């Protein structure tokens, strides 16, 4: 079986691990319901989602911020049997579940599936309401870490997480610094109708799939230098960015459909939505992807045009970009956007350098 995890993680097969796994398998197989069993983490594409991305907890968050943690927990416990409304990552999670059903049909014995893990800072008492909500919507989330305030980073690493989604930009930044693909989710202003048969994921190019090396040139030396540079180095692959490995994991699952003749019916579709222009700087991007052995289904070069309207047509379940300017544009027109806090783009807003106060180390 091919590895979904980075190749430098070589987990030795521990006999006690195998015992745990066998016991879990037995426990699920014995269940009266036909709930699908969660996959073996080592082979799965692990997606960790925070509670506030799966569910809308805006009102409760307000109580936490204004009245403190005790009142917040008391409120949650009091309303334990009321399910939350869906949050920004909810459609994404449902789409992942759909891909899993299709994969299980074609490969009933494979562990190469999406594994959705709830990764929350919430105290365990709030967990009861979260579990009730997961049950209400029948989401396939069987694994969770309710850390009661401890940092999630260690647990993300323990699960060999392929993607972490949260509303807390500090935690997301920490995850990226630890080498884990991560993004901060934003709820769009209006609702968009999304596919329930195909997972659609859109990525920005520079500083998301690729490093920010070219973006640095734009910011420091302007567009003309950027175009010249990209033309000259067309055949030199860009360095990889924080979401490259996630695209790779999606590609591996896509190929499982292709090899069963399901290319036209593939329930995963990927999009590149870049401000680059096809004529002058696009080639390098496509050649880089090719050199990595990665495919992207549709590459859309905007040559600087706003991304919002195009994303409205694409209707992705999630759109990753490193610049808040594009995130806001996407959000305004109804696209679920996720900010990747990486690279030089963080120091700028709408092309202007943000004045940062000196940080106290």
């Amino acid at each position, binding site marked *: 079986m091919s590895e979904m995890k980075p190749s430098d993680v070589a987990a030795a097969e521990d006999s006690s691990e195998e015992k745990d796994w066998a016991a879990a398998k037995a*426990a699920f197989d014995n269940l009266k319901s036909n709930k699908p069993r969660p996959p073996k*983490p080592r082979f799965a594409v692990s997606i960790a989602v925070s509670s506030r991305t799966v569910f809308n907890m805006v009102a409760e968050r307000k109580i936490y911020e204004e009245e403190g943690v*005790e009142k917040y927990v008391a409120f949650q416990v009091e309303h334990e049997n009321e399910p939350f409304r869906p949050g920004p990552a909810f459609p994404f999670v449902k789409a992942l579940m759909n891909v899993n059903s299709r994969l299980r049909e074609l490969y009933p014995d494979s562990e190469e599936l999406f594994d959705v893990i709830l990764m929350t800072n919430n105290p*365990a008492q709030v*967990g009861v309401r979260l*579990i009730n909500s997961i049950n209400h919507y029948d989401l396939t989330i*069987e*694994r969770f870490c309710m850390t009661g305030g401890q940092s999630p980073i260690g647990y993300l*690493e*323990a699960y060999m997480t392929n993607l972490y989604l949260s509303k807390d930009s500090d935690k997301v930044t920490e995850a990226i610094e630890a080498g884990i693909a991560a993004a901060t989710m934003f709820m769009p202003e209006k609702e968009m109708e999304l596919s329930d048969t195909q997972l659609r994921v859109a990525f920005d190019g520079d500083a998301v799939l690729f490093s920010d090396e070219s973006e640095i040139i734009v910011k420091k030396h302007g567009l003309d230098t950027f175009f010249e540079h990209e033309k000259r180095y067309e055949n030199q692959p860009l360095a990889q960015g924080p979401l490259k490995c996630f695209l790779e994991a999606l590609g591996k699952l896509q190929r499982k459909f292709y090899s069963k003749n399901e290319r036209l019916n593939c329930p995963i579709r990927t999009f590149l939505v870049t401000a680059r222009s096809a004529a002058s700087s696009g080639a390098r991007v496509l050649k880089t992807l090719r050199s990595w052995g990665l495919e992207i289904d549709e590459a859309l070069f905007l040559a600087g045009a706003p991304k919002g309207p195009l994303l409205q047509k694409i209707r992705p379940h999630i759109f990753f970009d490193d610049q808040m300017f594009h995130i806001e544009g996407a959000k305004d027109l109804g696209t679920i956007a996720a900010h990747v806090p990486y690279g030089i783009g963080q120091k700028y807003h709408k092309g202007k350098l943000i004045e940062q106060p000196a940080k106290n180390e």
Partner: protein
Amino acid sequence: MVSTVQNTDVKQKESDHAVVVAVASRAVFEPEAQGGDNVYAEGVAFPLLQALQKVNERLLEENSAESLLFDIVLITTDSQQQQQSSHLISSTKHYGLEVSRFCFSTEEDFIESLLQNNVQLFLSTDRNEVSQTSQKGVLSALLDEYTTSCPSEQLRVLFCGDAVIRPDTNPTPASRQAAQSFSAQLGKMRQRFGMSDSPLSIVLMTSCGGRDSCGGALRTLRSLGISVDEAYCLAGSPRGPILSVLRPHFVLSDCFSGLED
């Protein structure tokens, strides 16, 4: 032959209300190493003792007349350690450990000693000692080399629901009773502190079942007066990596089988 010696450096706890925790001397002090001045070097259980002491300190801060405290007993479990009694006492005093008394016993009679001293939890690095003690109905937990890297500022107790039951440690009704009463005491202690900045964290982990199994365990513990701080549902994922991040001081497992029904 068993002998019990009080530590005159430490205020004795009220026997009716305190939670008696006995720690094997081999876990507290390195038996072979010497810290100089005829004093033993620190063993793997040092952070654990410091954490237990921290809980007591904070309990008394909240209420100076608090009687629900940890009552720490150092116990020798073999004749060799029994011979070292004066060294053990002097080392304990040297480090200022909050040990109220010492029980000097041998392999044959240490369990008797535990029962006589109303011990509610026995901690040791020796798997056989833990197993034998469990069989006799005293709640016991194994300490290992990971215990040494646990925090000393917060006591972290892990309840393992639905752990794979080992055939040689079927929980007897007596040991299940011991587990429930210790947990209830722990739950009461936890109530003395607020949600954040607690010196005691109660952690629940379920290994095999899915979310409902963990959810059920949370509710059952709540009905027993135990408010869990952190919960981890593994649903078959490997325990090792999670435990190394969790860093519990000790794990109470196999005594809550059926907890999540």
